């Protein structure tokens, strides 16, 4: 299945593009997709603990399963918020 990956700020720099399309096997989770992106773009590795992931413009649990055509966004910490949000909910 084809996933549209959007990258912002430092993640965009690490990937070298604002948007890339990537094929993943059916059943791939959000977390697995990010791990796959780290393999392709090693510069993303430093964001593994801090990045927020969004699917179709909503913050997503790393365990949620992607569907063909989904828009997966890599959202590095916004100024002050992402870590706080993660503390509120360990699943996003």
């Amino acid at each position, binding site marked *: 299945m084809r996933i549209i990956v959007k990258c912002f*700020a*430092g993640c965009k720099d690490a990937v070298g593009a604002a948007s890339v399309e990537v094929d993943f096997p059916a059943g791939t989770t959000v977390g697995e997709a990010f791990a796959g992106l780290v393999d392709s773009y090693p510069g993303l590795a430093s964001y593994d603990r801090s990045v927020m992931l969004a699917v179709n*413009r909503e913050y997503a649990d790393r365990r949620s399963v992607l569907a063909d055509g989904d828009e997966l*966004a890599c*959202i*590095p910490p*916004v100024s*002050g918020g*992402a870590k706080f949000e993660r503390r509120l909910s360990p699943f996003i």
Partner: protein
Amino acid sequence: MYKITSEPIKPDALFEWSLKPHHGAVVTFAGTVRNHSDGRQTLRLEYEAYAEMAEAKMREVGEEIRAKWGIDDVAMIHRIGTLDIGEISILISVATPHRKNVFEACSYAIDRVKQIVPVWKKEIRADGEREWVERNT
């Protein structure tokens, strides 16, 4: 009104939009570009947004304010692109019939924006460094 814009933000326009006959209080907050950070001189900032999601998340903050305080009139404009020192990066307006809770609601608005709205800034410093800000500011 919840908007991401690359145009300079005009405070008067938002204030006038907020000011309705049934209102008795309007509180506005402006975030502006300061000339220093961590003791180093900043020349300008470059803002980037995940615009579609950012507008939806600003609207969500407005809905939270409605749920907490029953305040309906919240407006937010966030600018993106290159901003010079002293320019407005974000303007928030909260308007209510009575002043009770309106300062608290406006303070809540900027705190929540910083938490959930996907907007980033890159500092362009006098020492030549350029860096995305990925810390609490």
